[in-house]
């Protein structure tokens, strides 16, 4: 049987009929979403609505129970063979994941390494970049997030906002085609939120494709190209942020926005 022709330029993310349960709770109940290159998509919704789970399915930290996620036309965790999806080898999964950057709510920097070592670990160990070249690239990235002076500090010596900016630089060091942000400012003191959002705004302006789970409505309104509102594991409303946030059509969206705005 001839292979069907592959699209030359597939969307960066294509999610079809995505289902995921944790025990008896069905967190995702059939998500369909396509994201193009250069888009900045904000996922909005109450806690428990499935935003983070959906994000974690994109880089295969969670495995779908039904449906699939394609990133750049590939299944991150599987290969199609003989009409079935076979689990991919760990090295394949690692290689595909390395093209997807992720930033966590709790930063998850490696506390036993300096900032510079945090940023160079993956380029040196996964991409086999020479140490000197990796360090030069890391210093450029740290400058970009405004932390070139902190290269030799340990994460524990930095504020939350600084740690999150290092985490962004660490993810960018792998030159990802896509960046995922899982509530990147939710663990920060209010006065530190701005510096992280500024870095994310610059990143969006540079053309990076970003999927951001956030409660920062100002950021979603000003930076996102699309806002997607989830409720009970389903997308209930999506569109330009000024429309979804400014003039929501769905009752659930209105009720949620009334609480957070």
């Amino acid at each position, binding site marked *: 049987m001839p292979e069907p022709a592959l699209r030359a330029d597939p969307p960066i993310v294509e999610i079809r009929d995505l289902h995921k349960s944790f025990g008896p709770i069905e967190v995702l109940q059939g998500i369909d979403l396509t994201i193009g290159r250069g888009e900045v998509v904000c996922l909005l919704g109450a806690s428990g609505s499935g935003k983070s789970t959906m994000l974690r399915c994109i880089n295969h*930290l969670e495995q779908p129970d039904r449906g699939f996620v394609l990133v750049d036309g590939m299944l991150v965790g599987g290969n199609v063979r003989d009409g079935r999806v076979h689990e991919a080898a760990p090295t394949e999964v690692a290689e595909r994941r390395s093209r997807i950057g992720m930033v966590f709510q709790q930063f998850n920097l*490696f506390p036993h390494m300096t900032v510079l070592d945090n940023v160079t*670990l993956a380029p040196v160990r996964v991409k086999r970049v020479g140490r000197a070249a990796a360090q030069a690239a890391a210093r450029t990235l740290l400058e970009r997030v405004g932390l070139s002076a902190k290269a030799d500090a340990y*994460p524990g010596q930095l504020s939350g906002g600084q740690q999150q900016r290092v985490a962004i630089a660490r993810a960018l060091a*792998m030159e990802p085609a896509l960046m995922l942000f899982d509530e990147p400012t939710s663990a920060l003191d209010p006065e530190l939120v701005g510096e992280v959002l500024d870095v994310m705004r610059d990143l969006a302006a540079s053309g990076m494709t970003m999927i951001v789970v956030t409660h920062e409505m100002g950021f979603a309104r000003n930076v996102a190209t699309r806002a997607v509102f989830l409720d009970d594991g389903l997308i209930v409303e999506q569109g330009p942020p000024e429309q979804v946030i400014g003039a929501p059509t769905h009752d659930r969206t209105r009720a949620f926005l009334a609480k957070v705005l």
Partner: protein
Amino acid sequence: MTTGAAMRVDAEQLAGMADTRLVRRRRIGATLLNVVVALLVVAAVVELVVNPNFDWPIVARYLFDTNVLEGVLVTLELTVYAMVIGLVLGVVLAVLRQSRSGLARGAAWSYIWFFRGTPVLVQVLFWGFAASLFPRVGIGLPGGLFLVSWDTNAVVPIFAAAVLGLGLNEAAYMAEIVRGGLLSVPSGQTEAARTLGLGHAETLRFVILPQAMRVIIPPIGNQVISMLKMTSVVLVIGVADLLGSVTEIYARNYRQIALLLVASIWYLALTTLLTYGQSRLERRFGRGISRLEDDRA
């Protein structure tokens, strides 16, 4: 002086006093304890000096005796080799206990169950008598069908038997210590490493183990110190370690107490050194975690 009113103080009077720091209450209990302990210490020192049975001149003569020094070396070698086996095998067992393969988990669990559940003295004796269990060792099938084989006593000399006995026993304890360390590293660390494209082995080596070390080192230090002393059980299979060498000497000159003191002095000196080394290591692996360290950096 029992009512609140009676304890009221005149602020002006207090302000006029040169020194308002608290004068410490006399602590009768503590003073009494000091006296008792001091008396006991003096009594012990006097006894040590006055009692001729301690035989201090003999202690002094044998402290640096060649046979004793050789025994010290054997004890150190036993400790190092047994700990290396214990540590390497312990890490392997700890990782296997978290394996996705049920058989591997079961095997690791059974190993720990067996080697923790029988006395180390028995295990060392077993290895000492290994030749009577397996007269020949080699490559082949169970039941003695060998392709190639060697005489067990030649391949596993008594020193190796001692190292195996101690090391394999140690691995069981080490596995549980390492496992606790691995579990202490938050799962977000694994996730962060995975999203960066690090594989299973790289995540373990560069992210999880270095952080687990901070939790693992203090109990490992304990194990090293305890191993240093536990090596003395190899006496039963005739290895001339520190204790073995002093028993040989007192078998000839009947100065048991003096020579046991010689051994004790050496064991104490070595554990003191190890304690110092342990605190150095703890500082090394506390990088990025300990506040004190951060302030100095």
